[in-house]
C-alpha cells in the first residue's frame, strides 16, 4: 500500500498543528460556532447528539495492520473501546471529546492517517472497490489513480468551499463495486482500442434527498487528464451550483437543471483551458505511485487444497460460511475473505477494539499485513491462502467476526441513525437488529439468498437505502419515527433506484413487513432467481398488495 514520504508526512503534521490552533482559538472564543463549523467538519468532526463524532479517513478503504492497531488504541484511549465502519469506508468514533481531537489526529499522523476532508463541503475521501488489485474481473487496478486523486484533492485551494459535499469514486473492474453511478464524479477505468488506460467519466449521481444515477459526461478520457478534467467539472459546479438552498446544492441538481448536454458543453469549454495544464499527471508520477500497489509476493500454489476441501466436507458451518464470505482471487491458491461486522443483534459496522486487534493479527498472519474496509461495512482480508482459510474462520468465529451472512438479508448496511446522529429523523440500528433477530435461522437466510437491505435514518441516505434491494428510510411524522420502504434498488453496473411501496410503518412493524416481502419473493421466484431479479420481473405491485393486505 501507499507509504508516506517526507512531503506527505509534513502535510499531515502541519494539518495537526493547524487544527490544534483552530480548536484552541474556538475554545478561547476567538472563533465563533459558525466560523469553526466548516473547519472542524473538514477534519471530520461533527457535534452530535451525545458527544462529538470523529470520522477518520481510510483512503479507498485500505488499511495496514499497524494502522488498525492504532485505531484500536485510539478507541480505547479516547473513546469507549469501539468504532463504526461507515458506508464510505471510513471509521467513526462516537464518543471523542472536542478538546482531545487534536491529540487523536496527532496519534493518527504517526501511522500515516488523518481525518482530512471526511466531511464538509469539499472533495471527500476517494472510494473504490474493496477487491481492488485482487479481483479476477479487474481490468485496471484503480488504487494508484485513487491515491493521486487523494493528494490532488487534499486542501485543493479552489475547491475547499464548494456549494455542497463532493464525492468521487473510482473503479476498474467489469462488475462495478464502487457504485460509480451514485457519486458526484465516478471514474471508470478501461483499456481503449489502442490498449491505453482510459476513463469513462460519470457525473451527477448521488443518493440523499433527491436520488439520481449519474450520466456519462465523457466516454473516453486519457488517464493523464484525470485531474484537469475533474477540475473543469468542479469549477463549473463551484461557480454555478446553487448556494441558496442546501437541498438543491449538490452537483446532480445543477446537471439536471442544465441537462447533461449543456453541462458537458460548459465543462468541455472550461477544460480547453485546463487541458495539459501543470496538474496533468505524467508517466513518472503514475509509476512512482503504482509501485506501492503491485501484487503481493504470492507463493506458487495449486487451485485446490486438500485441507480446505476436507474442512468443507466435514464441517457444515464452515462450508456455509465459505459460501458467503470467501471470494475468488486472481492468484491461484488464494482467496479473499470477508469478516462480517454484522453479527445478529448488534449495530452493523461496529467493531470493538479487541476485534480490531484480532483482525490486525489475522492480517499479519494470513494476508500480508493488510486489510480493506468495504462500503458494505465489513472487513476484508484480501490475500488468504486456501489452506489457511479454515484457521482464519476458527479465529474469526471465536470473536464474532464470522457470521455467515455476507450478501444476505442480515448483512444490513446501516447508518448510525438517531441513536447517535443529530441529522437523523429516526433510529436505524434498532430496526437493523430487530430484522436480524427475526431472520436468525441461518438455513432460511441462505435459502433466501442474495439480498441487500439498506437502512438510512434520514434522507441524507448514509445507509444508501435507494440502492438497497430493500431500502428502509427513517422519516419523522409529527415528532414520531416512521419507516418508508422501497424495493428494487440495486448497486453495480446495472444500478437502479428503489420504488416506494406505500405509506410508512412503525418500528415494531418492520420485521413483519420484511417477512411479507420475502414471502412474496419465495412464492414467486423462479429457480435460481434472486430477490432483486424477481422484483425486476414481476414489478412492485404483488409485494405492495401483500404487505398492505
Amino acid at each position, binding site marked *: 500500500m501507499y507509504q508516506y514520504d517526507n*512531503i506527505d508526512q509534513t*502535510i499531515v503534521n502541519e494539518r495537526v498543528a493547524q487544527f490544534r490552533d483552530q480548536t484552541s482559538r474556538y475554545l478561547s472564543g476567538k472563533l465563533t460556532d459558525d466560523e469553526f463549523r466548516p473547519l472542524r467538519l473538514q477534519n471530520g468532526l461533527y457535534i452530535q447528539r451525545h458527544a462529538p463524532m470523529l470520522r477518520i479517513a481510510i483512503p479507498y478503504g485500505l488499511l495496514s495492520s499497524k494502522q488498525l492497531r492504532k485505531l484500536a488504541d485510539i478507541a480505547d484511549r479516547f473513546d469507549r473501546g469501539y468504532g463504526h465502519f461507515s458506508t464510505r469506508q471510513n471509521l467513526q468514533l462516537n464518543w471523542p471529546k472536542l478538546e482531545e481531537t487534536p491529540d487523536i489526529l496527532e496519534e493518527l499522523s504517526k501511522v500515516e492517517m488523518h481525518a482530512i476532508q471526511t466531511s464538509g463541503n469539499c472533495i471527500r475521501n476517494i472510494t473504490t472497490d474493496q477487491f481492488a488489485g485482487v479481483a479476477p474481473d479487474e481490468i485496471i487496478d484503480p488504487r494508484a489513480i485513487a491515491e493521486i486523486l487523494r*493528494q490532488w484533492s487534499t*486542501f485543493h485551494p*479552489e475547491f475547499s*468551499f464548494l*456549494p455542497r459535499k463532493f464525492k468521487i469514486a473510482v473503479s476498474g473492474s467489469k462488475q462495478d463495486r464502487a457504485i460509480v453511478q451514485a457519486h458526484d464524479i465516478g471514474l471508470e477505468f478501461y483499456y481503449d482500442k489502442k490498449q491505453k488506460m482510459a476513463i469513462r467519466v460519470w457525473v451527477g449521481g448521488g443518493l440523499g434527498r433527491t436520488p439520481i444515477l449519474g450520466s456519462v459526461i465523457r466516454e473516453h478520457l486519457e488517464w493523464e487528464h484525470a485531474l484537469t478534467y475533474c477540475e473543469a467539472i468542479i469549477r463549473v459546479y*463551484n461557480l454555478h451550483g446553487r448556494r*441558496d438552498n442546501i437541498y438543491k446544492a449538490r452537483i446532480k441538481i445543477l446537471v439536471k437543471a442544465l441537462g447533461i448536454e449543456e453541462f458537458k458543453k460548459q465543462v468541455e469549454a472550461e477544460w480547453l483551458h485546463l487541458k495539459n495544464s501543470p*496538474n496533468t499527471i505524467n508517466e513518472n508520477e503514475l509509476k512512482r505511485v503504482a509501485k506501492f500497489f503491485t501484487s503481493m509476493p504470492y507463493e506458487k500454489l495449486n487451485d485446490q487444497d486438500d485441507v480446505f476441501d476436507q474442512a468443507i466436507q466435514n464441517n457444515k458451518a464452515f462450508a456455509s460460511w465459505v459460501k458467503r464470505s470467501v471470494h475468488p482471487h486472481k492468484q491461484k491458491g488464494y482467496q479473499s475473505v470477508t469478516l462480517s461486522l454484522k453479527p445478529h443483534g448488534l449495530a452493523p459496522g461496529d467493531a470493538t477494539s479487541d476485534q480490531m486487534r484480532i483482525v490486525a493479527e489475522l492480517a499479519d498472519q494470513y494476508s500480508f499485513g493488510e486489510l480493506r474496509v468495504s462500503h458494505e461495512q465489513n472487513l476484508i482480508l484480501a490475500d488468504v491462502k486456501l489452506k489457511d482459510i479454515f484457521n482464519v474462520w476458527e479465529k474469526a468465529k471465536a470473536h464474532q467476526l464470522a457470521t455467515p451472512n455476507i450478501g444476505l438479508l442480515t448483512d444490513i448496511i446501516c447508518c448510525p441513525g438517531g441513536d447517535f446522529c443529530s441529522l437523523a429523523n429516526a433510529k436505524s440500528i434498532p430496526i437493523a437488529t430487530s430484522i436480524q433477530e427475526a431472520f436468525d435461522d441461518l438455513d432460511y437466510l441462505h435459502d433466501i439468498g442474495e439480498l441487500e437491505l439498506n437502512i438510512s435514518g434520514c434522507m441524507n441516505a448514509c445507509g444508501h437505502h435507494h440502492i438497497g434491494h430493500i431500502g428502509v428510510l427513517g422519516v419523522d411524522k409529527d415528532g414520531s419515527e416512521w419507516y418508508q420502504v422501497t424495493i428494487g434498488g440495486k448497486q453495480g453496473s446495472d444500478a437502479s433506484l428503489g420504488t416506494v411501496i406505500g405509506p410508512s410503518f412503525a418500528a415494531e412493524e418492520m420485521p413483519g413487513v420484511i417477512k411479507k416481502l420475502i414471502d412474496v419473493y419465495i412464492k414467486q421466484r423462479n429457480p435460481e432467481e434472486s430477490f432483486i431479479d424477481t422484483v425486476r420481473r414481476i414489478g412492485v405491485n404483488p409485494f405492495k398488495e401483500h404487505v398492505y393486505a
Partner: protein
Amino acid sequence: MLNSQLILNQSIIDDEWTFVALPSGNEEIKKQAGKVVLFKLTGESSPSELQINETVIPQNSKIILPLSVYLKNREALKTRLKNNEIALWLATHETLHALITIEKDINIFPLIAIFVERFQDGRIFSLGNLLRTRYQFKNTLRAFGDVLQDQLFYLKRSGFDSYLIKTGKDVHEALKALQSFSDPYQGAVDIKEPVWKRRVRS
C-alpha cells in the same frame, strides 16, 4: 503598530484606496423553508439602475468602484484611470464576462477586489484563479468582506495577494495562516507545478 486590517503579500499596510459602496437598494429578502436566503446565485442581476445612478463617485482620491458603476461611467473616468486612481470590485455572484468583454486588457486597473459576503462562498477562489490564469491579471488582487484567517492560505493559492481582514479579527494572527503548509500537493496559481514536478519524490 499600524491600525490597519489590510495585508499585502506578507505585510500589514495602510489602505490607500477609498472603497465606494453601492447605496442600499430595496434588497429583496428571499425565504426558503422559513430560512432567510443569503446567497445570490452566480449571474443573478446585480444593483439596480437606480443604485448605480445614485452612487456618489468621490473626486479626489484613489477609489475602488463597483464594476457596474465603472461600466456606466467608463468614458468619464478615462483620465483618472490613466492616473491609476480607479480600481474595481465585484461580488462573488457576479461573472467576469461583463468586464472582459468591455476591457480587453484588465491590467489597466491597478487593483481588483472581490467581495465575499460569507466566508463559505468558495466562488471567490475560482474568480481569483480565472483572473490570474485565464485573464492574466498581474496587479493587486484583494479579498474583502468576510475574510478570515483560516481561508487565507486558499486565497493566496488562488492568486490573491491582498486581504482586508474582517473588522474585529486579529490581523497579526491572520498573517501566520499564510504559511500553514510548506509544500502543498497540487499545482495552483501561486505555485503552478504539482509537488511531483517540483521535487523528486522518493
